């Protein structure tokens, strides 16, 4: 082999290796993209379809609720807080109201608390059904969406029957709950309570919800392709999940059986019997599975609550103009998506001095850059969907 030939070979090898160096492409996913749940923007560096790094850009939906709270009265705020996470409006109303009640030293009567519990669980069912319907859609299966949303509509009808609103009930009042829907001035005494036939309708609907979860099981849960897309994808180990402040089903799917409904509750969760669902895998499949099981647990809770709901007044005595004494408090509750908390500082007077909202989706979203490193673009969709965040909740 001549030296000249060897040199030529070397040159060509160098040429080839230079040619094969590829540049990463910057892929802007969102804010207008079919699967970013609204207006999330992800700036991803992709090598072909493999993601080398991803950076979420948030704030496109910032509505300034924390600042708004400083210029709104407490009564006006209940209408705002259920718009933070619009899929589970009622569940984020409760901690706020409880915070105000605790500062004022008022306790809602028992019946009101039970109604709050039932509605919270109905919203949990509704929120998880949105997930179990839209998650297969993100993986390309269109049919489950329609089957599950049809049953969710029944749940929304229940909520509407009680509160008059489907998404934004604005149903809590300091010291209890608002008069139920459908009552005018003359009927006030009658309509103060649960509408007639509502409890039976709830029982019937819960049956349909159970049927719907069964349908999801047969159509989605065992599906080979669904498993291929989700098992082992986007694995979040328990310690990482804790580190990033994940909560709710996302945390429980990583093997940490932590549910605020068992640890720190303001509603009579201790009087109902339910299990904390958790799964060890921490992958997308487990996050789906945990939510599906939680629907069943919530149905259990609702059915028990219907039987246990006591008679009595719906509202404690509270002043017409709410003046909250000086003080500060942090109240959190188990939102369908996880831990949802309010840090409320009052300097006395009709408005909060400062309201810090610890929103669930914001913390749940924060793990995206870590979990997506090295994933494929289709995995990005699968992981993003499985974390089940609402952009209104992220940006507040």
């Amino acid at each position, binding site marked *: 082999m001549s030296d000249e030939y060897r040199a030529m070979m070397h040159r060509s090898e160098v040429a080839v290796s230079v040619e094969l160096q590829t540049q990463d492409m910057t892929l802007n996913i969102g804010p207008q993209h079919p699967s970013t749940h609204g207006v999330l923007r992800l700036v991803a560096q992709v090598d072909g*379809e493999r993601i080398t790094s991803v950076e979420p850009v948030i704030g496109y939906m910032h509505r300034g609720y924390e600042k708004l709270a400083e210029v709104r009265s407490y009564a006006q705020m209940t209408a705002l807080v259920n718009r933070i996470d619009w899929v589970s409006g009622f569940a984020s109303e409760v901690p706020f109201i409880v915070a105000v009640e605790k500062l004022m030293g008022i306790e809602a009567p028992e019946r009101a608390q039970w109604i709050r519990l039932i509605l919270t669980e109905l919203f949990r069912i509704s929120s998880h059904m949105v997930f179990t319907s839209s998650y297969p859609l993100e993986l390309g299966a269109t049919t489950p969406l329609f089957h599950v949303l049809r049953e969710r509509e029944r749940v929304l009808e229940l909520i509407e029957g009680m509160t008059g609103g489907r998404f934004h009930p604005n149903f809590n009042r300091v010291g209890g709950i608002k008069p139920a829907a459908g009552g005018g001035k003359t009927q006030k005494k009658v309509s103060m309570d649960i509408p007639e036939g509502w409890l039976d309708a709830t029982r019937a609907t819960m049956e349909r919800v159970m049927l719907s979860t069964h349908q999801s099981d047969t159509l989605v849960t065992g599906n080979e392709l669904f498993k291929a897309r989700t098992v082992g994808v986007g694995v979040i180990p328990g310690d990482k999940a804790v580190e990033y402040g994940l909560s709710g089903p996302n945390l429980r799917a990583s093997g940490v059986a932590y549910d605020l409904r068992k640890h720190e509750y303001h509603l009579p969760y201790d009087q109902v019997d339910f299990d904390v669902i958790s799964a060890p895998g921490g992958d997308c499949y487990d996050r789906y599975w945990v939510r599906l099981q939680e629907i069943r647990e919530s149905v259990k809770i609702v059915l028990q609550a219907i039987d246990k709901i006591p008679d009595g007044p719906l509202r404690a005595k509270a002043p017409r103009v709410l003046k909250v004494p000086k003080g500060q408090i942090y109240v959190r509750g188990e939102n369908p998506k996880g831990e949802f908390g309010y840090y409320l500082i009052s300097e006395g007077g009709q408005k909060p001095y400062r309201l810090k909202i610890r929103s669930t989706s914001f913390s749940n979203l924060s793990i995206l850059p870590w979990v997506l490193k090295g994933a494929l673009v*289709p995995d990005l969709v699968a992981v993003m969907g499985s974390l089940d965040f609402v952009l209104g909740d992220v940006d507040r």
Partner: protein
Amino acid sequence: MEDFIVAAVKTVIAFALLFTVVLLLVWIERRIVAFMQNRLGPTRAGPLGILQTLADGMKLLFKESMTPDRVEVWLYLAAPIMALVPAVLIFLVVPIGAPITIGGTEYTLQVTDLNVGVLYVLAMSSMAVYAIALAGWSSGSKYPLLGSVRSAAQMISYEAAMGLALVPVIMFNGTTSLAGIVEAQGATYFGFLPAWNIVLLPSFVVFVIAMFAETNRAPFDLVEAEQEIVGGFHTEYSGFRFALFFLAEYINLFNMSALTVVFFLGGWQGPVFGPTVLQWILPVIYFFAKTFAIVFLFIWVRGTLPRMRYDQLMGFGWKRLIPVSLAWIILAMIAVGIRRFGLPWA
């Protein structure tokens, strides 16, 4: 001269037939998927919404066909045409009925019977990848580029599986002409079982799976996976250019279903009886009935399954389908050998 006229008439009829069928097909798909999903689907345009596709087509026709700034103009304009033409051309060799005899002359119910029909079909269906790859690349946008890279990889690998699945068919029937293959399936086993090539079950399964990938349909519709890469290769297309892609996709869907019927389900074969006219019409009815059964399979799968991931798709093609086809070819080869030459020890 007479040949020319016959060919011209056949071409026009085939063209008209194909487009009518596709118009119906889109409507059928939307209705069936809708029923699977507790919806009604299109019901407004015409009786039962049957004219919906036409209405959509008209709307797209009058829409502005936008050309983005950063496209490679000529390729961008050529890509939709390149998608449509091969799709239409495949149909020319598909026999849709038994040959009919009028006044002593025999007319075949296919535009032309190529003696290399199978190769022609494979060649034309591989042409589709050029359209998609070029459309994605020439759009000068990132999502279409990802889509076109996916499509190139996907279609090339499934092309191989598809071709291999057809080898046992060719060996069994001893011809590569589509009319010949259908003729050969007219025989019967034991005097009553139709000798359809579906007995080559592994081939049939591989072909059907490859067919899903080849037509970019769910669960292999990664090329236009909306949730991942927005519209895939046709993200930057609008108006009638988009309509051409759409049309090509559905023509391909129909073609592939028709080819499955021709290769494996006996084409137009079926019990024929009655007067001459009925004997002409029945095979055509059989052909379309079988084809729409396969189309229903397509729609059913679309309504049921989620999408596969790109790497899983490739792995499935190269690690499962192709080895299975190869092994099956060897088995089929032995079977054909025995049938022709007898057992080696006999």
